């Protein structure tokens, strides 16, 4: 049985929020709901440097659900709608959740999102608010994202494009893709290839090797939630700018194709 985990290289993250957008589209997230966030550490506004001249830093921190091994949300759910599957994914049963939002109180990472209103209505209103004159969703049944319901082997509904109102949802590590042997959408969609997804139980998997060889941290380690999302620290800043361009250019010369 695999145990899925993710490693995010903060040195490679360019803060473009592609992961958040790809996630939003693939998982049909209603407006206002984000399973994936990317912010600049320490900044009030994303993409603004932090610090005092000349000591600036700008490190971006993408945050999906941490899929904790000791997940507080799993412990507090009164009806067991949130549970940890054998492969380590923390999932929510859309058909069992009673919407008490205790898990949102318990989660230290703020990844859990509630369906405060009807998803279709939310789409319509949000498009209107955002100034789209066409009012895209008014008379079309089209919804972005993975078009099918997804159930686990024991029949629990863990993904549906038609989001029921009044239930909690969050990042599932794209369970609908993982069950088909594909990595999550954010991993595939990252332009900097900053994310690694794989089996933590397999010592030869890339993620296991990376965690073994590089300095990794996990978020809010002090709460003992044992997350399965690992962060690779950004490299020391003085290394930047020391790229030897001549070598690169030479490499490109060899690859150049005469038209």
């Amino acid at each position, binding site marked *: 049985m695999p145990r899925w985990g993710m490693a995010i290289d903060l040195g490679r993250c360019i803060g473009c929020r592609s992961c958040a957008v790809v996630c939003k589209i693939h998982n049909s997230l209603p*407006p*206002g*709901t*984000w399973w994936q*966030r990317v*912010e600049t*550490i*320490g900044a009030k506004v994303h993409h603004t440097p*932090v*610090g*005092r001249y000349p*000591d600036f*830093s700008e490190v971006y*921190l993408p*945050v999906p659900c941490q899929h904790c091994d000791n997940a*507080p949300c799993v*412990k*507090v*759910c*009164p*009806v*067991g*709608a949130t549970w940890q599957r054998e492969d380590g994914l923390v999932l929510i049963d859309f058909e*069992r*959740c*009673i*919407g*008490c*939002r*205790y898990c*949102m*109180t*318990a*989660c*230290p*990472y*703020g990844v*859990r*999102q*509630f*369906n*405060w*209103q*009807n998803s279709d209505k*939310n789409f319509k*209103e*949000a498009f209107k*608010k*955002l*100034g789209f004159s066409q009012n895209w969703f008014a008379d079309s049944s089209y919804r972005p994202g993975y078009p099918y319901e997804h159930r686990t082997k024991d029949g629990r509904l863990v993904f549906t494009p038609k989001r*029921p*109102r*009044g*239930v*909690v949802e969050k990042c599932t590590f794209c369970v609908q893709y993982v069950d088909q042997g594909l990595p999550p959408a954010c991993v595939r969609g990252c332009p900097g290839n900053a994310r690694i997804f794989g089996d933590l139980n397999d010592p030869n998997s890339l993620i296991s090797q990376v965690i073994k060889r590089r300095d990794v941290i996990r*978020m*809010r380690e002090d*709460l003992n939630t044992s997350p399965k999302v690992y962060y690779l620290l950004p490299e020391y800043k003085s290394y930047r700018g020391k790229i030897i361009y001549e070598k690169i250019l030479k490499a490109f010369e060899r690859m150049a194709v005469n038209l």
Partner: protein
Amino acid sequence: MPGKFSKVYKILGLIMLIGLIAFIYQLYKGLIVTHMRNSFSWGLYIATWAFFVGTAAGGLVVSSSIYLFKVEALKPVARLATITAFVFAIAAMTILLPDVGRPDRLYNIFIHPNFKSLLPWDFLVLSSYSLVSIIYAYILMKPEIYKFGVSIPLLGLKGKRNITDEEYKKLKEESFRKAKKLAPLALPLAILIHTVTAWVLATQAARPWWYGGLLAPTFIATAISTGPAIVILFSLWVLGVNERLLPAYRVLAKISALSSIILLFMYYNEFFVRFWWHHGEDYEALKLLFTKYLHLHVIEVFFILLSAYLFFRYSDVPKKLVQGGIALIIGVFAHRFLLLPSAYNIIPFRVPVIERYGSEEWSYPIAHGEVIGDLLKPGKVFVDYWNYYPSIIEILITAGVMAAVVFVILKLSEILPVEEKA
């Protein structure tokens, strides 16, 4: 035949009706009509829930202490106290209905309970508590019910049996004996409901405002101060004043006042410990209380102190008792509401930002869950602070449940023999 409270019933009925309409509207629209959002996910309903549980717990503390600690002076108010305990315990479960997003799925708590979570336990103790309190009330009132019957609206006089004076006397003795047997069960259960309610919050390490061992004791202290105060208020309203009731009020007022002082002591004891360290999440939560929520904090402390003063000083003057009781309700309600802001607005996901010249903790913003603003005035998507105040719908629904509580208590005390008869 217009009763003593017919006008009050009309007003309460109206508030209940408005509350019901607001609830239906909320069911129709979704919880978007409340002012809770993802980063501030529990609001007025949960504060009211804690308030109701506290008041319910106070009820049986009063009536069981008559038999456990032989406080005979409280005997005239025992029946009313058990009725308030029952009604408030039911109300505490009722106020959770509008808070859950899918009330239609609540049966899941019976078929898939997760006993690691404290919510099913809370449900279990609350329902057994309401059961015990109604049994307790029945035991206390059984002789009168047998002798005089109960006139239920639409059904007429029920339960009356022809019994001789001797049998009546025997029933009274039996009632006393049974109540004495039940008291050792009722008191721990009363303490337990509020303890488990506190544990629902106090076990959350992610919320430093709640996390720790002191929340349950302060909850108990609030219960023992509001419970008696509510009993005094209803007793003055329903039974009025006589030479048998006055000593009961005196004892109740003193218990309540003492407990209020203990509550404030524990509260400020915690504050000092947090204040002294002066850094970190615990301190930030305290700072929030004393900056953005100072007005509510002043209200809570002022009214709790005022009620303690009135209860200590004028425990014989009915008018002052009413003022003290109302002041306590305001103070404790503010106290209950203040459970929330310092818990939710200190975002648990914090990242230390370490610079050459110093360091600070940075909170990671949360998507609040609604698209606000338009192209000219765009609203925020991710927030690290949510200025929660209850929406009008939340207030109407809560007011409706509160009106129902008062309505049912008044009605029950009219129907049932709450006054001991010779």
